[in-house]
C-alpha cells in the first residue's frame, strides 16, 4: 500500500500568537508575509498528525510505504524531520518563483502523486496554521477524482482496498468507510504525535530529500497562475474595555462580581 502524506512548513503558531499579543508581529515589505526570522519554522501541527496516522497504519500491519512530500524551497530540515519520524521516502517539490494559491499547490501535489504511480491513500492535515484555508486536500481530491474524508481522529485499513475513518463531527464521532484510493484529512483529536528518537534523528541527518521541480511535473507558470492572490496581511487589533473587580480576598471579589453581574442584568436577580 502506498501512503502519501502532504506536509507544509509554517511559522510556529505559538510564537506567532505570543508576538501578536504583544503587538509585535512584523509584516514584511511585500505587505503579506510575516517577516520574522526569530520565529521558528516547523511542520504544520495537523500535518504531523497526518504523518502519525500513516505510521500507525504501517505499524498496525499494513504493508505500507509512507512517502512524505512538501511544496516549497529549503525544505531539507523539514523533510529530515519526517524521515526521523519514520517516513520511507521524502520529496520536496520546488515551485516556480511566483506566489502560489491552494489550487496551484494541489496541482503540484496531484501531479507528483500521479507521476510516482499514484497513491492508495493521501493523508493531509485538515488545514495549515498560517492561512487556515484547508482547501488543498479537497482540491487534490477533485484533481485526482478521489473521495475526500475530512477531520479524521482515526484512520485504519478495512479489508482489501478500503479505509475506515472516524470523523470528529459537532454531533460526536462518525465512522465512515471509503474505497481506496482516497484523500483523508487528519485532525488533532488523533492524539499526540510521536517524537523522533535520537538514533532516527542521527540517521536522518545524512538523508538528502529527493527534489522535483514544477517543470519535471509538466507544470509551467501559466498552469500554476493563482486565482487567489494574497494582497495584504495585518495583525488584528483588539483593545478592550474591561472592568477589573477587586476585593480583600477571593470571597469579597466573588460577592462584588456577582452583585455587579446582577446589577448589569447579566445574571438574573433572585430567581
Amino acid at each position, binding site marked *: 500500500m502506498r501512503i502519501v502524506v502532504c506536509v507544509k512548513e509554517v511559522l510556529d*503558531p505559538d510564537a*506567532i*500568537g505570543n508576538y*501578536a*499579543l504583544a503587538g509585535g508581529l512584523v509584516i514584511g515589505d511585500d505587505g503579506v508575509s*510575516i517577516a520574522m526570522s526569530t520565529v521558528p519554522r516547523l511542520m504544520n501541527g495537523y500535518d504531523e498528525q497526518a504523518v502519525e496516522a500513516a505510521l500507525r497504519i504501517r505499524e498496525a500491519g499494513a504493508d505500507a510505504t509512507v512517502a512524505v512530500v512538501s511544496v516549497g524551497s529549503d525544505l531539507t530540515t523539514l523533510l529530515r524531520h519526517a524521515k526521523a519520524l519514520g517516513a520511507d521516502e521524502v520529496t520536496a517539490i520546488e515551485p516556480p518563483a511566483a506566489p502560489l494559491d*491552494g*489550487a496551484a499547490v*494541489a496541482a503540484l501535489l496531484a501531479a507528483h502523486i500521479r507521476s510516482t504511480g499514484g497513491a492508495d491513500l493521501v493523508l493531509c492535515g*485538515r488545514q495549515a*496554521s*498560517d*492561512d*487556515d*484555508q*484547508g*482547501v488543498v486536500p*479537497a*482540491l487534490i*481530491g477533485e*484533481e485526482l477524482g478521489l473521495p475526500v*474524508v475530512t477531520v479524521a481522529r482515526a484512520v485504519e485499513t478495512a479489508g482489501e482496498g478500503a479505509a475506515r475513518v472516524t470523523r470528529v*463531527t*459537532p*454531533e*460526536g464521532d*462518525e*465512522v*465512515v*468507510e*471509503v474505497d481506496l484510493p*482516497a484523500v483523508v484529512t487528519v485532525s*488533532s483529536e488523533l492524539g499526540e504525535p510521536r517524537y523522533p528518537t535520537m538514533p532516527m534523528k542521527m540517521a536522518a541527518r545524512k538523508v538528502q530529500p529527493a527534489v522535483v521541480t514544477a517543470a519535471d511535473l509538466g507544470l509551467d507558470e501559466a498552469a500554476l497562475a*493563482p*486565482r*487567489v*492572490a*494574497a*494582497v495584504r496581511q*495585518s*495583525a*488584528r487589533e483588539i483593545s*478592550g474595555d*474591561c*472592568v*477589573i*473587580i*477587586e476585593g480583600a480576598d*477571593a*470571597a469579597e*471579589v*466573588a*460577592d462584588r*462580581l*456577582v*452583585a455587579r*453581574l*446582577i446589577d448589569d442584568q*447579566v*445574571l438574573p436577580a433572585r430567581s
Partner: protein
Amino acid sequence: MTEAVVVVTWRGVRGDPVPETEAALTLGRGVAASLGGELRWLVLGPAPEGMAATAARHGAAAVDHVDDPKLGPGRFDALVEALSRYAADRSPRLFLFPNTFDARPVAPRLAGRLGTAVVMNAIRVDVADGRLTALASANGGNTVMVYAITGPGPSVVTALTNIIVPEDAPEPSTPEVSEVAVDLSGVEERIRVVQEAHTEGPRIEDADVLVAGGRGLGVPENFKLVEELAEALGGLAAASRPLVDDGWIDSSRQVGITGRITRPALYVAAGISGAMQHMAGCAAAKAIVAVNTDPDASIFRFARYGVVGDCTEILPELTRAVKERGASR
C-alpha cells in the same frame, strides 16, 4: 446578464442553520449591491420553514430550490454535483456558503470541479473595479488577510457567519421562488456511513451560559470547580484546547477555532490566556468574565469583567455567591 451572488444552504443534522443562513444572506446582499447584481438563495434538499418570507426580508431576488432525496448533510458527492450543474446552467458570479462544518468539505471541492477560486473564513467580501476581494481570518485569528480573487467565476467563498450580524434589507423584496430539477441519477456517495454520530446531552453551541477552564486550573481534579460553577449558573462546562488534548474532557466541550463556536449570553473564562484560536470560539458571547492570575493576559482585552486572581480560589467563591443570590439564568 445580471450578475448573481448565490447563497447556498442545506439542512444540517440538527435542523436548518437559521442564524448562519441569515448572516450569509446579509453578507450576500451587500456583495450583490456592490456588484450591481442580484442576490439569489439556493436551497438544497428540504425547504426551511418560512423560506419565502426569509428570502423577502433579506431582499433576495429569487429562491432556487433543488429538492432531491439524494441531497442532505454529508452527501458530498450529490451536493457538489448539484452545485456544479447549477453553475453550468446559471453562471453565477459568486457562491457564498456559511462556514459551517457541513459546508467546509463542499466549497473547495466545488471550486476544484469548476476550476475557479475559493477563499474560506471570509469576514467581508468587497468589490473594487468589478473584482472581488475577500478579507479572511488567518493565523488562528491573529491576523487578517486580504485576497484578490481573479479568473472567471463562479468563485466560491465561505463566510464566518458567526461574527456577521444578520440585518434585514431596508425594503423587503418579492422573490421569485422556483423548484429546480437537477439530474442526480448518476450520483452515488463514495463515502459510506457505518456508524452515525449522535450527541449525548446538550451542546455547548446551544448553551446560554458557559464556564470554560484553561491551563490556569493546574490539574485535572480542579476541572470540577468549573463544572460546579456551570451547574450553579444553569450552564455547561467547557474547555480550551490544551485541556481537551490532554484528555481532561471530551472534544465536544472544546471552545475555539478548531473546536466549537459558541455564542452564550455569559461566558466565564477561568485560567484561559485568551489566545485568538480560543477567542474565535467565544468572542460572540454577550458578556465575558475572565479570571486569570496574569493582569496582562490577552483575555482581559476581550472580557467585560475581569478578576486578577487564582481561578482555583475564585471559582468556588463564585459558586457560593451565585447560590446565595439565587442568580442562575
